[in-house]
């Protein structure tokens, strides 16, 4: 295969060369353990501190409110379990949504088994929560509200500030999974009023296996990973200095170019969406038409299944993703697509194409050219299509 175009930036991103360059010295020159009393360690410490400052700056947080983790998943697990365990004297009720990432959802489910009570808010057809639902869900024993900033599958951006304001009025701790939003949207923890916020490096052209949790000063949490005194005794384990340094650089770069990045992505995103919906019948855009991540396109193609669509696209060098269960080996299609009201068949026929910094207009044109015949070929094979094709187009 010659051409290979990446349309799966929401899954992970290639690391930028500037990020790798920044990391290089920390692999085998400035490689010391930052807790050590010697030059090798001090240099590591300097890299660590500077990355922490950079990330704090992008979030308008204080440096000592940023704690490094091994990724978005750990940040989510830590945020939720940490708040739940540290505040269980105050109550045992948690509010979240039906469309969270599994890192949040499964953590909440695990807490339910331990005796916590969890309310999973519904979302509308665009994947948007209803703020009145949130208000109504709050009870005297609610200790935590965790609502994702932007959805990884359908890109919908939640009214996070409004939700956090509701939480604050009631004195409830508010966490947001901003793994998809970070680096793509302006996030100001003070303006938003969130208490905890999860981010991950590999979604913003940084290294895999590195994330962070913002914890507002004064927020009561417990540790998830116990051991050494790293991260002010709140997250143990020898620090992944090269990774953290890379994260810092990636964060800095993302926010240097945010406006240009966004403008470009939104243009390409809207072109791709419009053309595909026009060119191919029996399709629908999933997620909110405008309140969505700049790089997210998610379309359902009726009568066909997502994995076969992905495989066919892969054969022409287009790398996308799907909410079909068949891509994950599980039975049910994406819980997000089900939550916005799709039937199983439509959910299985969903395609997510996510755009990023290396996506070009030609790439978009290439998809617009290649996708319609592929959809058509698969529909011709589908027993579901024959039932309708007599009728319309």
């Amino acid at each position, binding site marked *: 295969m010659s051409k290979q175009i990446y349309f799966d930036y929401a899954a992970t991103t290639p690391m930028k060369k500037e990020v790798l360059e920044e990391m290089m010295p920390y692999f085998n020159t400035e490689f010391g353990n930052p807790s050590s009393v010697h030059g090798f360690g001090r240099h590591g410490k300097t890299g660590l501190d500077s990355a922490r400052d950079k990330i704090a700056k992008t979030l308008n947080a204080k440096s000592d409110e940023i704690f490094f983790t091994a990724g978005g998943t750990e940040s989510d697990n830590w945020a939720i379990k940490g708040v739940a365990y540290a505040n269980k004297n105050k109550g045992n009720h948690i509010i979240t949504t039906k469309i969270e990432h599994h890192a949040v959802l499964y953590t909440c489910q695990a807490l339910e088994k331990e005796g916590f009570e969890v309310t999973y808010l519904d979302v509308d057809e665009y994947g948007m929560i209803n703020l009145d639902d949130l208000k109504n869900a709050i009870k005297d024993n609610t200790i935590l509200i965790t609502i994702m900033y932007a959805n990884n599958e359908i890109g919908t951006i939640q009214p996070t500030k409004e939700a956090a304001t509701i939480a604050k009025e009631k004195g409830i701790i508010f966490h947001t999974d901003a793994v998809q939003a970070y680096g793509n949207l302006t996030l100001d923890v003070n303006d938003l009023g969130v208490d905890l916020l999860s981010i991950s490096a590999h979604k913003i052209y940084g290294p895999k296996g590195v994330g962070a949790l913002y914890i507002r000063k004064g927020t009561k949490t417990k540790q998830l990973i116990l051991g050494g005194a790293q991260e002010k005794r709140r997250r143990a384990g020898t620090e992944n200095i090269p990774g953290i340094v890379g994260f810092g650089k990636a964060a800095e770069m993302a926010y240097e170019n945010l406006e240009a990045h966004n403008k470009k992505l939104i243009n390409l995103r809207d072109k791709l969406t419009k053309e595909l919906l026009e060119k191919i019948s029996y399709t629908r855009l999933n997620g909110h038409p405008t309140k969505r991540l700049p790089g997210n396109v998610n379309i359902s193609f009726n009568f066909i299944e997502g994995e076969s669509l992905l495989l066919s696209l892969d054969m022409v060098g287009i790398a996308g993703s799907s909410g079909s269960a068949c*891509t994950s080996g599980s039975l049910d299609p994406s819980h997000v697509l089900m939550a916005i009201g799709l039937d199983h068949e439509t959910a299985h026929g969903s395609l997510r194409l996510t755009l990023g910094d290396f996506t070009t207009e030609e790439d978009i044109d290439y998809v617009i050219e290649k996708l319609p015949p592929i959809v058509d070929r698969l529909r011709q094979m589908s027993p579901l299509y024959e039932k309708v094709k007599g009728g319309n187009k």
Partner: protein
Amino acid sequence: MYSEKVMDHFMNPRNVGEIESAEAVGEVGNAKCGDIMKMYLQIDENDVITDVKFKTFGCGSAIATSSMATEMIKGKTVKEALKLSNKAVAEALDGLPPVKMHCSVLAEQAVKAAIFNYAKERDLYYEELEGFDPTEDGHDHGHEEE
């Protein structure tokens, strides 16, 4: 993740389509699980499957196993076709990933379901269909236990 044979049968599936006046038609699977296979068999007076077509809604291996299954039963007698096992289909494709083995089960069942309907209409008895239930979809997506 897929063998070359699977990819070949997925990209160039054999026997796609319908047979208008097929003697035997069977459909298994459901949209919930993301795969539906429909099989059409033309069967002559000697119980020989002279033609076979399929339509499948499903993943790459669902399409590939459908294609391979049709190839494997074409020209065979009904009794021989009933001996087609999912393992044989998977092996003929040089194997399937564990989570995709259910697709081969579905292909085996699509053949059986078609013949089941054929037998029912004609009041024929096939020992091989003993215990076969066309409504069971045999879905075991190979979940890992923790």
